[in-house]
């Protein structure tokens, strides 16, 4: 299958869409179908590969990049509307 999303690190819980993904499309990473997109995800934007609960970290490059501000389901678009920068990521 042709991939439409990319993961950097094995532990990442999101993938980055490498083309515009429509609601209902399969999310395909390294030729393997991982889940279904439950909404549109634009090129360059993130999609959850597994459920992420409110307060949990979103991982890219194997590192936390933001935290969920509400529960996020598998296949959902992940961005500034349902996440926030990790408080304390910036030191005093």
């Amino acid at each position, binding site marked *: 299958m042709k*991939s439409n999303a*990319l993961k*950097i690190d094995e532990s990442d819980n999101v993938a*980055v*869409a*490498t*083309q515009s993904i429509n609601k209902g499309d399969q999310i395909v990473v390294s030729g393997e179908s991982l889940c279904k997109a439950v909404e549109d995800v*634009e*090129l*360059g*934007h*993130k999609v959850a590969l597994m459920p992420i609960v409110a307060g949990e970290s*979103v991982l*890219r*490059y194997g*590192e*936390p*990049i*933001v935290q969920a501000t509400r529960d996020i389901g598998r296949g959902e678009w*992940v*961005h*500034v509307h349902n*996440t*926030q*920068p*990790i*408080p304390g*990521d*910036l*030191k*005093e």
Partner: protein
Amino acid sequence: MEFLGYKREDGRFGVRNHMLVMSSVCCANGVIDAIGRALPEVVTVTHAYGCGYGPEDFVVSQRVLSGLINNANVGAVLVIGLGCEMLKAESLAQSAQGKLAEALVIQKAGGSAATTARGIEIATEFLKELKAQERVLAPVSELVVGLECGGSDALSGVTANPSVGAAADRFVNEGATVILGETTEMIGTAHILKRRCATAELGEQVERLVSDCEKQVRATLGPLAGMVIAPGNIEGGLSSITEKSLGCIMKAGTTPINEVLQYAYRPSKRGLVIMDTPGFDIDSMAGFAAGGAQIIIFTTGRGSTAGFPAVPVVKVASNSPTYNSMRGDMDVNAGSIIDDGRTIDEVGQELFDLSIRVAGGEQTCAEINKSAAFSYLKQGPTF
């Protein structure tokens, strides 16, 4: 490994042999522009500063403009000032080492028309002398390459920046120097960079550099600090500075960090070094150029078109839509990693090979377009 470059008196090599016509103060810009219209071959450097600021900004001004004058890509320089400004044209011209240099002062030369005419005479003479100079064999280890990202999207850290990292590793392998900057885009990754430093002391310097930057960002932006990224970045899919930073530092490749430099200082070590530059692309490139970078590799997701005076800027697009829609501004398409199944290493090799050809004279898109943006860091008040 070698390229054909211009040898300078201090032993450094330029990849270009430019005639710079530079203003010491923005009041003189009109004359510089007029000389540039008469002689399109010169590289004009005009800016918004030179007066009406405090001692700290003054010192940075001197260091940046003098650093650019002394960049090995510059074969000759004519500095033009008004006469009553803080930053004197004569002192900038005097700071030029081992190259043709002259200063003109509008208030002493009889006004703008007279200064323009005299400036055209001088520049014509200098251009003639520069044309007679030839390229000679130069070791690739003499190259200093600045690494920049601008208009990043979520793919910058996936395709373009890792490809630059692969190229950076190759440069370092050849004994050359690569500079990672944009301190705001290291926020959230200080622990990773610290691990990569050649000594514990350097690790502490990096940590302090990034944490000072974080404090400044927080003081200025308050609770929005974690979002210190431009609207274009957010539209492109990046959700936080940490996400953007992780993608950014991929440009630096995998080799140890050998030096931590303040803004616009020249590296004294080879290999990978870090320079404290802002995230704002143009000011950041000015830091690299003043530090002696002969080439800048610049990744972009949204499509930055900015080049820099006297320094060839190689543009790497992170995605094919941007590459294809702005074909005349992009040199390498890292989007081919997604669309054509190429590897990061392949694109890194393509980028390295192109950079060596650029060093030998091949023009980048930004050079062909004469797209040069110039600005530099000013942090204090204006009076």
